[in-house]
């Protein structure tokens, strides 16, 4: 293979590469599994190819969407990426952008997570696209995801409409050999053409914009380039057709091969599930008696076919929740094609080790201090690594980004009239606080709510791969930004009680917490904020600077397992035979925090 540039790439990297190759000049994102690596990859490829591109980790998805959309108004190609629930945050600009349209190609990557593997819902963004009347591509593999970026830009520019690319976790995280090209040099000078009827679009302009939007969607549904691809059978099962999209199509393709049925039944791959190609709908209804639709996660193609003979989610042949793994697709195919089941062995119970906070994680220390200081407390929390605090009973709620602060207000007023109300201790990560915590805090202060807010400041977005937060002041491409400091924000939001503490010193944190509680209950009290500050240990440079102690468990250990159940450091494990707990030297980072957890004083630390 001489000059061909082929590389093994993760789906997310392939999409990042695709954006760079298409001459995209503005790309904003907010990290969230499974989409996080797209922007990081684009940063790398833009450097490699010397492409001129603004790349940013925006503070949240709504901001990312709006910024990117404005760049498109100037005629440049722009893009935005997020996970599916991020699109809920960006729903406001998203819905309206369909009406107003775009100028330069505008691509939204919304990564879905059927299963879900690491999300609070398994919603289908293609459904959202249909709701918004925005076309959506559904790739089956990394190489296809990259190729669809180009198709999406072209479609977007032809109709001046935002276009969504909806990969799923399996596409984002799969790796494949993908070929690379040099970036297009579009060299478009920015030109924003003022047009109040369109870019301001007060209600009187909306009916006309809506008419135009409908017309665009009608025309796109007639574009033969997006007609589903047919892998034709030999007519031995000519009344059957299987219609699939995304990775479910890939599973179906491999399965038909395994079952010895490839080339026997007509298999269609839908690459543009919305709007579904008009003639295709007619063709399917007239040509086949038996029709199966396989798609993740909601019935988007199925409902557009408008045919009661269609089998799928409505008929229960495809389960109405969960990921369509090859095993699930196999069962559906066997039933649909009426072939005997290949094997009936139940799937192995996949029960691995449950994930937990890292050894030495500062969040664990903070949580242990919170729950032991307030045994009766209510602990609203939020989304991030720190949600793992649920393993040892240190958090009580987790809803959506930033919700914990508003929940603190709700809990406070619900208990406000009671005698001796419980302490309410809200915990939120630094990145989540920037993302959506601030309006909730302003509201809490304004409404005179009283609770303790602990900001778990580990100077990063650890959950999704350690992207820097605005406070750190480093931008996506590594250049310096203007740092925005959390204490400054707190003051500006009207918070009068602000303390900082390193959670490794649990006694100090505990006394700060009691002080905060007294403040909340005092006459002049309000919101008390404690910034629990210690860097994430996955940040190698920070981890390297911290003191490493030699930690041991002495003969005094009675095997009560308090340290395992209430603290759960992965470096502590039960030696059942010996009836005691031991430290796994390979995992222990020597933070020494567990010393104050053991009621027997059996854990001892000394300086190395």
């Amino acid at each position, binding site marked *: *293979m001489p000059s061909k540039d*082929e*590389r*093994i790439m993760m789906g997310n990297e392939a999409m990042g590469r695709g954006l760079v190759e298409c001459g995209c000049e503005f790309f904003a994102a907010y990290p969230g*599994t*499974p989409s996080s690596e797209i922007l990081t990859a684009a940063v790398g490829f833009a450097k490699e190819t010397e492409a001129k591109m603004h790349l940013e980790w925006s503070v949240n998805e709504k901001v990312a969407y709006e910024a990117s959309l404005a760049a498109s108004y100037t005629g440049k190609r722009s893009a935005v990426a997020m996970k599916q629930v991020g699109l809920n945050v960006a729903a406001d600009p998203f819905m309206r952008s369909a009406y107003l349209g775009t100028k330069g190609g505008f691509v939204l990557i919304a990564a879905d997570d059927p299963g879900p*593997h*690491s999300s609070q819902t398994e919603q289908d963004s293609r459904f959202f696209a249909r709701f918004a009347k925005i076309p959506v591509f559904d790739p*089956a*593999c990394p190489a296809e995801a990259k190729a669809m970026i180009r198709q999406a830009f072209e479609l977007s520019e032809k109709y001046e409409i935002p276009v969504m690319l909806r990969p799923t*976790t*399996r*596409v984002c*995280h*799969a*790796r*494949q*050999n993908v070929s690379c090209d040099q970036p297009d040099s579009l060299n478009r000078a920015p030109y924003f053409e003022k047009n109040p009827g369109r870019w301001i679009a007060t209600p009187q302009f909306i009916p006309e914009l809506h008419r135009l939007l409908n017309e665009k969607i009608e025309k796109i549904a007639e574009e033969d380039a997006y007609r589903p691809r047919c892998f034709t059978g030999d007519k031995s099962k000519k009344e059957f057709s299987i219609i699939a999209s995304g*990775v479910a*199509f*890939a*599973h179906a*393709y*491999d*399965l038909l091969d*395994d079952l010895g049925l490839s080339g026997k039944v007509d298999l269609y791959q839908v690459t543009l599930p919305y709007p579904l190609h008009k003639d295709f709908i007619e063709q399917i209804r007239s040509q086949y008696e038996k029709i199966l639709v396989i798609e993740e996660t909601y019935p988007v193609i199925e409902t557009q076919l408008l045919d009661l003979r269609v089998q799928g989610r409505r008929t229960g042949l495809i389960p109405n929740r969960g990921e369509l*793994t*090859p*095993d699930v697709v*196999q069962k559906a195919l066997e039933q649909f094609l009426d072939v005997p089941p290949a*094997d009936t*062995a139940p*799937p*192995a119970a*996949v*029960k*691995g*080790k*449950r*994930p*937990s*906070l*890292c050894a030495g994680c500062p969040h664990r220390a903070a949580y242990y201090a919170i729950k032991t200081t307030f045994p009766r407390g209510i602990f609203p929390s939020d989304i991030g*690594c720190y949600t*793992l605090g649920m393993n040892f009973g240190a958090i009580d709620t987790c809803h959506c980004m930033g919700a914990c602060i508003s929940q603190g207000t709700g809990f406070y007023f619900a208990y406000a009239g009671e005698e001796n109300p419980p302490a309410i201790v809200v915990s939120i990560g630094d990145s989540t606080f920037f993302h959506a915590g601030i309006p909730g805090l302003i509201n809490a202060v304004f409404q005179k709510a009283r609770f303790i807010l602990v900001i778990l400041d580990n100077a990063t977005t650890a959950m999704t791969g350690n992207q820097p937060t605005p406070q750190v002041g480093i931008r996506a491409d590594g250049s310096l930004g203007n740092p925005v400091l959390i204490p400054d924000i707190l003051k500006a939001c009207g918070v009068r009680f602000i303390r900082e503490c390193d959670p490794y010193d649990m006694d100090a944190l505990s006394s700060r917490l009691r002080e905060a509680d007294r403040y909340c209950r005092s006459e002049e009290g309000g919101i008390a904020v404690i910034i629990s500050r210690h860097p994430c240990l996955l940040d190698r440079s920070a981890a390297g600077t911290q003191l490493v102690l030699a930690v041991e468990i002495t003969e005094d250990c009675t095997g009560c397992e308090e340290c395992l159940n209430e603290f759960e450091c*992965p470096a502590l494990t039960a030696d059942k035979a010996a009836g005691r707990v031991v430290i796994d030297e*390979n995992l222990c980072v020597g933070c020494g925090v567990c010393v104050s957890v053991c009621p027997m004083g059996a854990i001892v630390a000394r300086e190395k």
Partner: protein
Amino acid sequence: MNHIKQQIIVSGVGGQGVVFATRLLAEAAMEAGLNVLTSEDHGMAMRGGTVVSHVKVGAFRSPLIRRGQADVGLFLNRENLSVHRGLMKGAGRIFVNTDLPGEYLHCDATGLAKDAGAVVAANLVLLGYAVRTGGLFCTAKQAENVIMRISSPRQLELNLKAFRRGTGDRHEM
């Protein structure tokens, strides 16, 4: 055109190098002029949970291996057999990092890796061992080329040494 088709799983826990072993297999497939698709569990897996990766070499479209379909299984610890053995074909070849005998091929990869310089290289020892038995689609030469290409300079010597412990090639750099 090469018609090799092989489905491989790599099973372990976070920190055992499942991801690197998977990448190595993928690059080796490309080196051999074959199409390849891999996938692995992400997210919380990196916080110490069980990890399994799927490697499909040849003309496949789906990145996942169905139950009972893997031709080769590389188990970086023996405990994971109870979790991931179900992915293996009846006639599939299983390689386990352990010194305990069982219904599988095994070698004490951790011990050999420690010997070669660091326990973290057990993944490469096991890979080398699987290559030696002829169980994998690639040759030792192809695998070594890839190790040289993708290892960080700091890890290169250790990786090669560990791989050669696995292949039984005592000739070290």
